């Protein structure tokens, strides 16, 4: 054990140091070595989390779950515990207006409610590992696909190794914080990754199941059905029919789950979850754009602006999927980023998933133009939020405007990044398909 782990350790350090060596000079790593490396990364991710829990367990349990940047009214673990407690005592969990999460989570945590807290921590660590593994698989599948596609003549093909993709996700501080805060958004993330992976592999039915689950967990992933339906492997003549069938299956499954939940928990589940997310009934501050605006708004305009804000987020599904119809996975990645920036109850964990998906498209990163800007904006957004929260809530010397300013910086950083990655993809497509533009300057206005 010690000898092999030492060897793997060196390999990991090497991998991290060189950012996944797909350089032309180094020989491509064998599949076996790569999976060993991946296993090592996943194990190390677990060890780091367990170490943090063992050393700073009290601090983590007291401090992180209450952070508004990490858990929102629709993902808070405290609220889930309340729902579990109510339903364990045969009271409707949606009574009292505290619990706003999907019945799916209630069913999943039903057994855990009776077990010690350590099991719950274990579930969250396992979820992180599952997501990281999913990302690695996704990266592998996409790399295999990209290798067969035409590239730009004279370019170096960069492809992040699956183990590096997993490491970049697992060791992202935002991911670690989100999972230690036990935000239930991780379940939705796992479903999203599953949907994208199955979709890419042509397992459309599984992809639809995952999307439906993700939709029930956090509503916005419904947007993903657009790119996923385009991932169909059907031959061109049957394409239209396959896409329609996928969308119909999705709608049927979502309605089926809805009927099931209505049967178990009554119709009030719907107003407490989906309706709650759409109407933004709880204006607890978070890192999104909604709360401040809807605190300030006059009541008579509320409905109108809810429609406007929600459409701003949801309307991207079809155009983005259509514009990147030849690379539906990329459309999916962009939609994950759009959700993270524009949804009604976002948290840092949403950004973390988007950042985790980016290395899969490593060949686009060389086309990006504003990384310095967006990296800075995101750093200030993430750094200033807790500081302004401290000034506003704990110290009382600041006010809501402070925190909202940090939120604006954070969202602006995400939009810049989305814009940058999107235009990188467009430029690359242009380079591949329109050879005459390769030596021209393209200006986007």
């Amino acid at each position, binding site marked *: 054990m010690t000898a092999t782990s030492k060897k793997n350790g060196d390999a990991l350090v090497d991998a*991290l140091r060189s950012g996944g060596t797909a*350089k032309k000079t180094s020989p491509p790593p064998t599949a076996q070595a790569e999976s060993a490396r991946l296993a090592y990364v996943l194990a190390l991710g677990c060890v780091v989390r367990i170490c943090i829990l063992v050393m700073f367990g009290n601090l983590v349990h007291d401090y992180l779950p209450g952070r508004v940047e990490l858990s929102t009214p629709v993902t808070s673990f405290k609220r889930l515990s309340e729902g579990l407690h109510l339903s364990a005592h045969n009271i409707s969990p949606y009574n009292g207006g505290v619990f706003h999460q999907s019945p799916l989570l209630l069913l999943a945590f039903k057994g855990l409610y009776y077990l010690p807290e350590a099991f719950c921590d274990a579930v969250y660590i396992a979820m992180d590992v599952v997501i990281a593994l999913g990302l690695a698989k996704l990266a592998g599948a996409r790399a295999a696909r990209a290798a067969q596609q035409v590239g730009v003549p004279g370019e170096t093909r960069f492809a992040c190794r699956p183990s590096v993709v997993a490491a970049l996700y697992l060791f992202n501080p935002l991911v670690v914080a989100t999972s230690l805060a036990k935000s239930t958004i991780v379940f939705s993330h796992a479903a999203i990754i599953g949907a994208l992976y199955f979709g890419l592999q042509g397992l459309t039915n599984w992809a639809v199941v995952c999307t439906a689950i993700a939709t029930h967990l956090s509503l916005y992933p419904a947007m993903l059905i657009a790119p996923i339906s385009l991932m169909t492997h059907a031959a061109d003549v049957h394409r239209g029919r396959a896409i329609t069938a996928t969308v119909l299956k999705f709608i049927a499954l979502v309605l089926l789950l809805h009927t099931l939940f209505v049967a178990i928990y009554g119709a009030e589940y719907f107003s407490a979850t989906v309706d709650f997310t759409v109407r933004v009934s709880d204006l607890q501050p978070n890192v999104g754009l909604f709360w401040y605006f809807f605190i300030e708004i006059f009541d008579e305009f509320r409905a109108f602006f809810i429609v406007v804000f929600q459409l701003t987020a949801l309307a991207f599904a079809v155009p983005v999927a259509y514009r990147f119809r030849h690379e539906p996975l990329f459309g999916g990645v962009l939609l994950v980023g759009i959700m993270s920036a524009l949804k009604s109850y976002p948290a840092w964990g949403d950004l973390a998933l988007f950042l985790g998906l980016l290395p899969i498209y490593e060949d686009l990163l060389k086309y990006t133009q504003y990384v310095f800007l967006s990296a*800075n904006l995101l750093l200030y957004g993430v750094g200033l939020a807790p500081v*302004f929260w401290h*000034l506003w809530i704990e110290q009382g010397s*600041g006010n809501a405007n402070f925190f909202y300013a940090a939120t604006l910086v954070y969202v602006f950083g995400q939009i810049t990044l989305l814009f940058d990655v999107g235009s990188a993809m467009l430029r690359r497509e242009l380079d591949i398909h329109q050879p005459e533009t390769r030596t021209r*300057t393209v200006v986007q206005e």
Partner: protein
Amino acid sequence: MSLVLSGQGEKTSPVLRVARKYSAYLSYPLAICGLFWLLVLPLSSFSRRAYFSENAMMPGQVYTTFGTRSHMDAMDRVDAELKTKDRAHAVEAVFASIGLDTETQAFTYSKVPRIGKHTGTNVHGILRAPRSDSVEALVIAASWTTASNASNVNAVRLMAGLAQYASEQVYWARDIVFVVTDSGEQGIEEWLRAYQGLSTTSPLFVRSGIIQAALSLELPPAKRYTGLGLYFEGKGGQLANLDYVNMVQYVSRLERMPAYLHGMKDVPRRAHWWTKYTSATQLLLRQVRAQAFGSSTGIHAPFLRYRIDAITLAGLPQSDDPVSAVFAHGLFTDADVPAAPMLRPIGRTIEASFRSLNNLLEHFHQSFFFYMLPANQRYVSIGDYIPAAGLMIGSLLLQAMHLWWMQGPDELRSDSPHTRIARINAYYALLRTTLPSSVGIILRVHALGLVLLLIPQLIASSVLTDTTTTAYLFTMALASISMVLHTSDIYWTRGIEWRQLKSIVSVYLAVIVACLSVMNFSLAVALFVVAGLPLVFTRVCRVDTRIRRASGVLLLMAVSPVCMMTLGMHVLGCTSNPFRVFLADFYSFGSLVYPLVCLVYWPVNLLCMIMVLIQ
């Protein structure tokens, strides 16, 4: 947007090309401008006259009555009780005789984690307000010893007198809590924890409502006081609301016992502008020191952590005061210290202040929480001083932008469309090989900082004295230097460029300074001066010879944390190694200085050295 900003790929606007290429030359003067901005703050034309925002306080609108026979009797009773009982029970007896709800709180605490258990006793008495239902309270607090370790029995006597006075009145809308502690800030912190229900080991049972404001008293032995010193800085850089400070200054002047900020008297109005300027500078520097590293006078600082506006009033003896000269050393029992005959105007100042606090309709919120006070009854608001931080952050960011652009060979910066594809591929390949190395160096150096942070907290039962602290710091410094030499050797052979490293570190430091500047402006400036300025000027000129490299490293060692803390001992007025003081403040009050030294200042200094040493 693409006209303003674009990266390696597309044709860049000429403005941006020039800006990126020469922004470094702008960043040096910008950093200097940031410092000069601070030098402008003391100018009297830069500050504004203080005013009251909260009209409900109505300061100075009442006749003050403190100082009747019964109040003096209560003060004398303290001396009588002190002769027969220990001091906690003496005070308890006096409070009880006045009719307050009293309780003593015995507690243990340690100043540094796992090291030494100290014990202490707090006594408090609550005067229940006749006109309200105990949901809000005001606090008067005193410690048995002053900051300079002299007896503070005068403050306790005055508190007894004030308690007697307050108990005779019917107009109180808030409970008044009188607290006496024997362990300074630590004691009041324990008391506050218990009051808020956070302490499980030494809970309080006699409690009142939410504390709206607190006033701490410090009256060293003296024959007479010429005025009061006013201190308002908390541990984490919090300041008391400006209305509170203004109000106390105003009423103290009416009572002919002026409260001077940090005990610095007014400069005559017709003085030369330079005299005014130097005096304002001195006052601002004292505030910066207190705000950045924690105030050492009075016990008001812990209150501010709990969102309670608090100040300290400290009596200022004359320099040739005979009593002060004899009793300044704390070798006498409290009963020996003669009662100061001049407590009446101080009492009336507090009376007037508390009448105003009693008038408050809500928590202080109208006036500034972020301010600097260059002279008595003048202020500089955040809008006028924060641009200095902006300039400093801007200089770091411009530097970073320039270096990020300048990394790699020159061909990468051409904007000919014909070489675009080759260029972006080469540029990304360069980032792909160098970026993990740069991040690797930064992580390693921070791991060392984490070790520096954790060891004093993990080692059990070792006694962290001044000598061992110094030895520890020197050992860590040696370890750091050897690490610097080792890593720079490795990275030299690998051909890693310093530009990328400096760019990343500048971005990182800029974020930290920005976040700090809104929370604790003084600390942000201090951090920029000791870590940011050296970073900006690292490799400002070529380091191609060994002598230049060696002198660069020596200069960086001169601004290293060990050096600065050794020098800072006198500036900060610490009696022991500042590292220990910071550690104790971090442990007891969550002060940020200690983690910043370990996790930001120390690593950035080492990274600067590495930058000088690599290619």
